[in-house]
C-alpha cells in the first residue's frame, strides 16, 4: 500500500493525458456494458426458462389454431399437473404503434402454472368473475397511466367481433414478476369472453402450456403429448420452455455475433491506443525510473509499479463506464429488453479491463525492469 502514492503520482504526472485515456477507456466500457447487456437480455430468457413447463403448439406453425378439446386430452396424461390456454390477441392501445403483448387466457389455470407472476388473490378472483376483466403488468399500467378499475379499449385488427363492437376491458388487477429482469408489460384478458365475442377461429387456441410434475420426465411427457395427436388433422409439436425461448431468440438475428464483432473492434483499437501511450509514458520517465533504481527500488517493484498504474487506470475507468451503462438501463429497457444490467456483465467487464491493462503495460513494464541505470542517467 505504500506504493499507492507513487502510483497516483505517476498518473498525475500528465493529468490531462491520464484523464483523456480514462475517458477513452470509460467510453469503450460504456459501449461494452450496453452491448453485452443486450446479449445478456437474450440469454436471460434462456436462464429464466422453467424446466417444468411444456409448450404445445400446432405442428403447422406457432400461431396456427388448435381445437380447445386438446386441453382435456393433455390434462388426462399421467404426470401433467395442469394445462393453460393462450392465444395471441395482438391488441394495440389508441394507435397501432402502441402494440401490446396481449394474451387471451383462463386466469386460474394460467396463473397457477406461472407462479412467478404475482397477483393478489382477490384480483385473480375478480378476473375470474368479470368477463371483460383484464390483468396487466405494473410497468404497462404505469406507461399509460392505468389504474385498477379503469376501462380501456383496445384495437385488435386480427379479431373482428361478431357484433362489430370494439374490444373493451376493465382492469381488475396488476401483476408483478420479481424473478425476471425483463419488463413487466403483458396484458391478460379472459379467454371465455374473447372466444365468445370473436367472429373467427372459435373454439380454438394457439398455444397450450402443460405443467409437468417431474422435470426429469418432461421430454417423455412431451413425446406422449405429440403421440396423442399424431396422424390427426391437428398434430402438435411440444417443446420445453428453454427450447421455445431459444427458437424465438435465434430467429431475431445473429445478435451475439454482431455484438462480439463490435466489441472486438473496439477493444482492439483501445489496446492499440493504450499500449502506445504507456510505451511513450515509460520512455519519458526513463530518468525517473533509473533514479528510483539507484535509490534502491528493485527491478521487480518498478515492473509492478508500471503494471499497477495501468491496472488502476483501466479498472477504475471500466468501472465508471459500466456504471454509466447500468444507469442507462432502466431508461432503455424497452429497447434492450432488460430492466437492469446483470452482475455477470460487470464482472466480466472488470476482468476484461484487467487483461487489457496487462496486455498494454507488459512490454513497457518489462523494459523498465531491464533498464540499465548508468546508461539511462547519462542520457544514452
Amino acid at each position, binding site marked *: 500500500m505504500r506504493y499507492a502514492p507513487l502510483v497516483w503520482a505517476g498518473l498525475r504526472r500528465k493529468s490531462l493525458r491520464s484523464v483523456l485515456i480514462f475517458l477513452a477507456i470509460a467510453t469503450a466500457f460504456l459501449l461494452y456494458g450496453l452491448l453485452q447487456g443486450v446479449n445478456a437480455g437474450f440469454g436471460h430468457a434462456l436462464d429464466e426458462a422453467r424446466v417444468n413447463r411444456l409448450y404445445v403448439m400446432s405442428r403447422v406453425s406457432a400461431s396456427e389454431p388448435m381445437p380447445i378439446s386438446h386441453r382435456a386430452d393433455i390434462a388426462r396424461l399421467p404426470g401433467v399437473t395442469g394445462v393453460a390456454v393462450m392465444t395471441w390477441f395482438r391488441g394495440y392501445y389508441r394507435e397501432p404503434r402502441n402494440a401490446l403483448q396481449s394474451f387471451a387466457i383462463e386466469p386460474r389455470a394460467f396463473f397457477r402454472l406461472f407462479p412467478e407472476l404475482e397477483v393478489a388473490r382477490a384480483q385473480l378472483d375478480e378476473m375470474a368473475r368479470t368477463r371483460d376483466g383484464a390483468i396487466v403488468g405494473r410497468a404497462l399500467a404505469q406507461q399509460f397511466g392505468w389504474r385498477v378499475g379503469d376501462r380501456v379499449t383496445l384495437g385488435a*385488427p386480427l379479431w373482428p367481433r361478431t357484433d362489430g363492437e370494439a374490444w373493451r376491458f376493465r382492469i381488475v388487477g396488476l401483476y408483478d414478476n420479481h424473478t425476471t429482469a425483463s419488463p413487466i408489460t403483458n396484458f391478460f384478458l379472459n379467454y371465455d369472453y374473447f372466444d365468445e365475442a370473436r367472429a373467427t377461429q372459435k373454439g380454438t387456441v394457439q398455444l397450450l402450456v402443460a405443467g409437468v410434475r417431474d422435470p426429469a420426465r418432461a421430454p417423455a411427457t412431451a413425446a406422449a403429448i405429440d403421440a396423442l395427436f399424431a396422424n390427426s388433422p391437428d398434430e402438435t409439436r411440444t417443446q420445453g420452455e428453454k427450447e421455445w425461448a431459444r427458437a424465438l431468440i435465434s430467429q431475431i438475428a445473429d445478435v451475439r455475433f454482431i455484438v462480439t464483432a463490435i466489441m472486438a473492434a473496439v477493444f482492439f*483499437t483501445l489496446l492499440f491506443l493504450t499500449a502506445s501511450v504507456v510505451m511513450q509514458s515509460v520512455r519519458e520517465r526513463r530518468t525517473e525510473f533509473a533514479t528510483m533504481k539507484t535509490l534502491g527500488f528493485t527491478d521487480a517493484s518498478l515492473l509492478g509499479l508500471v503494471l499497477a498504474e495501468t491496472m488502476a487506470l483501466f479498472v477504475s475507468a471500466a468501472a465508471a463506464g459500466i456504471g454509466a451503462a447500468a444507469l442507462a438501463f432502466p431508461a432503455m429497457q424497452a429497447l434492450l429488453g432488460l430492466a437492469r444490467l446483470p452482475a455477470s456483465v460487470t464482472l466480466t467487464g472488470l476482468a476484461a479491463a484487467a487483461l487489457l491493462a496487462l496486455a498494454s503495460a507488459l512490454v513497457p513494464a518489462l523494459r523498465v525492469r531491464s533498464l540499465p541505470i548508468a546508461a539511462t542517467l547519462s542520457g544514452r
Partner: protein
Amino acid sequence: MALLHQAFAVTALNLRSIPQRIGSSLVVVIGIAGVVAVLVAVLAMAEGYRRSLLASGRPDRAIVLRAGAASELTSLIPREAAAFILDAPGIRRDGDEPVASAEPVLSIGVTSARNGEPTDAAVRGVGAGFGRLRPELRLTEGRMFRPGTRELIVGRAAATEFRGVRIGERLRVRDDAWTIVGHFESGDAHESELVGDADAILSGFRRDGYQSVTLALASPAALGTVRTALAARPDLGVEVRTERAYLADRAAGLTRLLGFVARVVAGIMALGAVFGAIVTMHAAVDARAAEIATLRAIGFGAGAIILSVLAEAIALALAGSMLGAAAAWALFNGHAVSTRAGGFAQIMFPLSVSGGSLASGIAWALAIGLLGALLPAWSAARRPIIVGLRQA
C-alpha cells in the same frame, strides 16, 4: 494569402514527417476506421432492409388491409369484404377480370438450412390475376403452380434459407403434402416467401379470410376512386394505400431502430476515438515542439501552425475513413441477413453499403479528426517559443 501559403508549407512538412510518428498516427487511423466500419455496417443493414421492402413498391399498385393493421401480420379481410373490394371502381381490368389478388398470408414451421433449427417461413396465396399484377416475378426453375392444387413456388432467398424446398420436395402440413414445383425471383422481399394458389391455401390451412388485397390501379390517380368506394362501406373496416406508402411504413420501424442503434453505437465509439485522437495529436505536437518553435521563430504565424495540425488530423481521418469504409464494403456488401423483424416469418435481405452511408462515415471521421486536433493545435500555437526551443 500569406496564411494559406504558410499553412500549406507547414502541412507539407507535417505530412512528410508522419513516417517518424507512424505508431501514434496509426492509432488515429485505426481508431477512426473502426468507428466508420461499424457505422457503415449497421447503416448497411438498415439500407438493405429498406431497399428490399421498397423494391416491391410501384406507384400504380395499391394494397388493402384491415383498418388499423400495421402489416399483414395483424390484418384480416373476410371473404365477402374481399369480393366487394375486387369489384371496386378504379382497379385496372383485363377484360372483365380485375388485375388484383386477394391474398392469405401465414407462416409454417420449416427447418433452417443455416443451423438446422426450426424456423418459420411465410406462405402467401395469390389470386388468378397475380401474374399481370406482379410482372416482376419470374420463374427461374421448374414451372408455375396449377390453380387449385397443393403446389408451391419458392422465392430465391427462401430456397437458400430453408431446407426441404427444392423442386420436387414436399412439405407436410396436416393431412396434405405441398409439392414444390418451381423457384422464382422478383427482386424484392417476396423472394423470402413460398407462393401458392389462394383458394388452395385457404382450404388447406382451414382459413376463411385473407390478409390483404393487392390491386393494380387503372392510373396512379385512381387511388382516390378506390378509396371513396371503400369508404362507402365503413362496416368492412378496410383501408387502401399505395404499395409504396405501405412498404415505407413497414420498413420505417426497423429502419428507424437500426439507424438509432447505428448512431448510438458509433456515437459512443466516436467519442472514444476523439479522446484517443486528442491524446495522439497531443503527443505528435509534443514530439515536434522544437520544430514548431523553430518555425514560429523564423516567422511562421500561429494560425499557420494551427491549420497545419488540423490538416494533418484530417489527412489521418480521411485515411481512417477510407480504411473503415473499404473494410465494411468488402466484408458486408451483399452479405445476406436473415431476420424475423416482427413479421410472420424470416425475411432475408442483402446488406447494402450505399453512397449515403459512406458519406456519413466520412463526415463522422472528419468530425472526429477535427475535434481531436483542436486542443493540441491550440496549445501548440500558444506555447511560448522559447520553451519549445529549449527542447531542441
